[in-house]
């Protein structure tokens, strides 16, 4: 887990004011991420340290990844021997933007500190910035200095799939830096959050707009996350394509190639629509817009929106232009495969066979990567479920993840990592469906079918309750299933 932090404006330029350092805190975390291979257990406690800084409202801003799956969190100011217990409200963790806030019940913690203030605008390329935090290599506060090397779009590794603006800096960013502020002058312009393995002098910070988006989002006491428009598109540079779409020579625009069934645009846009403007800004044929003196990808305008707001698009459809207002209210998407945190895995054990929904956390387990055909099918399904319409009619994919060996399941190995499609003749749309289907055995048997296979797994329904009891006892399962969402 990359932990970073930065600092370094020459202390002289800070004119000796102890403004910042007392507000940059060290965070001690004990985490307990669940093990998706043994989902009935709570997981192995572990821990580490990160950084954070005090912001308005007696809160500490840090990375989502520093406090995800946390069981116990303490914060400490530089030069203060005391550690204070801090609280994480998991509903306020922004897993898609890797940000979180902590509170400290003992308000004396905040004595002598001042909330750090944010800059009004992003720094420019080449601007000198400092990172402050508590990285590896020592116990006390560390300050490093560098310049803004790049302002770009990048993947946030905490969720594994979300892309937002990132600030790349050339100061060392090391484990422990995570959550620490990035200063331009006396103002915070970013929050150090990840490094790049194999690169040199490449560190990344979450920039101001993303931080502000997050703080605005949680102002109502709940985190909604970035809204998703849910379209794939191609550029319209090709003159023959433009002619085919009957696009005016000068119109620019990007052509919609796919509309995600879980995106905000699901009922409003369609393939072959050409997006001409977004919020009044013309979209060039390569998908960029001109704003604030620089060209940005059009999605950055979308990034400024909160969930529940609307976005105004001008769309070229059937040879004419029309205005479409898209309310940014996408439903939860069970086929997106973000990494999950602060959730107990759902599972169901039948005759020692462990079934779970397909999740990114499960996909990253080594057991899915054994080189077997089922493992490759999982990989394909997780990439192409929606594009290839495999998701239709189901709520989630249910996978047979492992077997707790016992006579009753001695022949189940070929089915491991298989996606369950049918149990006792009932189509499986979600994990709970298996539980329901088990109420209707066929002639005394439970019959399971799997995606892409004519083979079937057969269990003796009459001996099942007894077998389940024996397996629970032998493998120390406190419960046979966890079907609902739990924290």
């Amino acid at each position, binding site marked *: 887990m990359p932990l970073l932090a930065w600092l370094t404006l020459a202390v002289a330029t800070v004119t000796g004011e102890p403004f910042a350092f007392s507000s940059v805190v060290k965070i001690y975390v004990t985490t307990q991420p669940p093990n998706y291979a043994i989902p009935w257990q709570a997981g192995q406690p572990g821990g580490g340290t990160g950084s954070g800084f005090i912001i308005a409202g007696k809160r500490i801003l840090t990375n989502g990844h520093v406090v995800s799956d946390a069981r116990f969190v303490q914060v400490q100011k530089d030069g203060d021997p005391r550690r204070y217990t801090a609280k994480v409200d998991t509903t306020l963790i922004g897993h898609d933007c890797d940000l979180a806030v902590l509170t400290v019940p003992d308000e004396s913690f905040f004595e002598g500190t001042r909330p750090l203030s944010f800059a009004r605008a992003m720094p420019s390329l080449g601007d000198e910035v400092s990172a402050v935090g508590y990285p590896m290599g020592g116990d006390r506060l560390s300050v490093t200095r560098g310049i803004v090397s790049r302002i770009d779009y990048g993947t946030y590794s905490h969720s594994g799939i979300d892309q937002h603006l990132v600030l790349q800096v050339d100061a060392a960013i090391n484990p422990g830096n995570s959550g620490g502020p990035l200063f331009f002058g006396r103002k915070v312009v970013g929050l150090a959050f990840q490094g790049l393995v194999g690169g040199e002098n490449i560190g990344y910070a979450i920039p101001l707009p993303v931080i502000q988006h997050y703080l605005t989002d949680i102002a109502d006491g709940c985190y909604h996350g970035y809204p998703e428009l849910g379209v794939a598109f*191609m*550029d*319209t*540079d*090709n*003159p*023959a*394509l433009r*002619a*085919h*779409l009957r696009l005016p020579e000068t119109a620019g625009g990007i*052509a*919609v*190639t*796919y*509309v995600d069934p879980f995106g905000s645009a699901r009922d409003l846009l*369609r*393939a*072959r629509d050409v997006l001409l403007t977004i919020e009044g800004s013309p979209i060039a*044929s390569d998908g960029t817009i001109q704003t604030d003196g620089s060209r940005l990808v059009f999605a950055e305008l979308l990034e400024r929106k909160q969930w529940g707001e609307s976005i105004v698009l001008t769309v070229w459809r059937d040879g004419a232009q029309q205005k479409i207002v898209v309310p940014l209210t996408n439903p939860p998407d069970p086929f997106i495969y973000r990494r999950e945190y602060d959730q107990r895995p759902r599972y169901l054990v039948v005759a020692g066979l462990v079934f779970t929904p397909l999740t990114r956390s499960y996909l990253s387990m080594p057991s899915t990567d054994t*080189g077997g*055909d089922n493992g*490759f*099918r999982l*990989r*394909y399904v997780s*990439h*192409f479920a929606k*594009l*290839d319409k495999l998701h239709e009619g189901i709520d989630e994919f249910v996978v047979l993840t492992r077997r707790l060996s016992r006579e*009753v399941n*001695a*022949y189940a190995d*070929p089915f491991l990592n298989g996606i369950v499609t049918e149990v006792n003749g009932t189509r499986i749309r979600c994990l709970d469906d298996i539980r329901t289907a088990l109420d209707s055995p066929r*002639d005394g*048997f439970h*019959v399971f079918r799997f995606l*892409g*296979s*004519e*083979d*079937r*797994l*057969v*269990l*003796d329904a009459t001996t099942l309750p007894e077998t389940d009891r024996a397996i629970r006892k032998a493998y120390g399962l406190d419960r046979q299933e966890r079907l609902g969402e739990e924290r």
Partner: protein
Amino acid sequence: MNLLAAAVFSLLLPAAPSDATASNLLQVIVTSQQQHPMMPWQASELGRTAGYGIALDNRTVITTEHLVRNAKFIELRRPRSGTRIPATVRLADAQVNLALLDIGTGAAPSNFAAIATDGPSHKRQPVTILQFDETSQVQEGEGQVVQIMMAPLSDAPYASLACSVLTDLNVNGEGAPVITEGRLAGLMMSYSRGERVGHMVPEFVIGRFLERAQTKPYPGFASAGFGWTALVDPVKRRYLGLTNDDRGVMVLSVLPRAAGTTDIKPNDVILSWGGKPVDNLGFYEDPDFGRMDLACLIKMRGRVGDPVTVGIVRDRKPMDVPLSLVQREDAEALIPEDLEGTPVEYLIEGGLVIRELTGRYLYAHGADWRRAADPRLVNLYLSQKLRPEKPGDRVVILSLVLPDPINIGYQDLFNRTITALNGKPVRNMGDVFRIASQDGAIERITIEAVGVDLVLDRDALPAANARIARNYGIPRLFHKRTATPAEPAP
């Protein structure tokens, strides 16, 4: 059946038991070159490999198919001789890893003695492996056959009968003959120095290959046309209505083929094959080799066209099903392997390279191709490669875009499945050529799950095609076979 085959074979090759085998040993030096797996208009780097073969008579050498795969030129050397004798491939069958070479007619008379083959291989059989040492003298090494089984070939996705041979000789080339008592017992296919174990094609397979090589057209080896799985689980057996407890395997996928050749269906339980009981792991009792996989009975003992009665249980009822053995042709597959690297058909229009997906194309992504290649194409290959919905279906892909002004905007779209051209559905390259010829050009390409067609400027195409050919050094913008290949081997 075995007796019959042996009889035919002895007529074919009059046995002359002697120690002549060593003097029939030949080094086979192969210069190979494949079509480039990704750029079908050009060839890959030359390869040069040396292995062995053995002369069966003055005209014929037998060696492994893998050694001579994609051979552009083959030279033979006798022990202690520098003279190189040209040879050509007469027949090669990747399904059993065997090839016959014709010794060049211009070569001096060779006076090879006729070679006999040994009887069926058996375990613990002592054997001698022949090869060249560094001074091209015959080097012999003792070995022992330790196992006979149906095993996947290492360089082709087929199972064949193979023997494990334990030997201290560091086998230095494939095709090295294995002899016993002056008779050919097999050809080495591979050798692991660390484990001191190699695999050989046994005489049993060689005998059948030679016998079938006499038939025109070459009938090849038979295939069942379906896949099956072991049926040990007692609960599943009860569910399927089986009354015995040690026989039968369950049929999974059945390959499409001409009507009437097979009446086997998924979830049938096969209890016997041609009167031989099949156990619940898929083994039968072979008269020569003992307990062997059902695949041996079908592929090694069966013949294409043989009628077979299969005892099955279907829907809990026992019945006999008649079936006729067929040969599985690579060309029948949705995704052919194209192991031989035959020049694939392609069409380049406006820099868009259109071709069919093959196993060889996927393998070209490296040893870890299952992870490296496009997950969608890999999934198609792993789950559906042998099962086209209709005969003749292939996966037509946009494999590559050669950047040019005419294809601006499309250059990131490759490894995608093409579903239609000019609005007309596409099932294989035949459709592609037909549409191109009827319409005069490909100007609209529909790609799976991409809602916007790629459109090319028809008027600009001729100039763009010429420019692309010149710029990228492409001698021909398409390759179309004149006729559909009737046989996998010449």
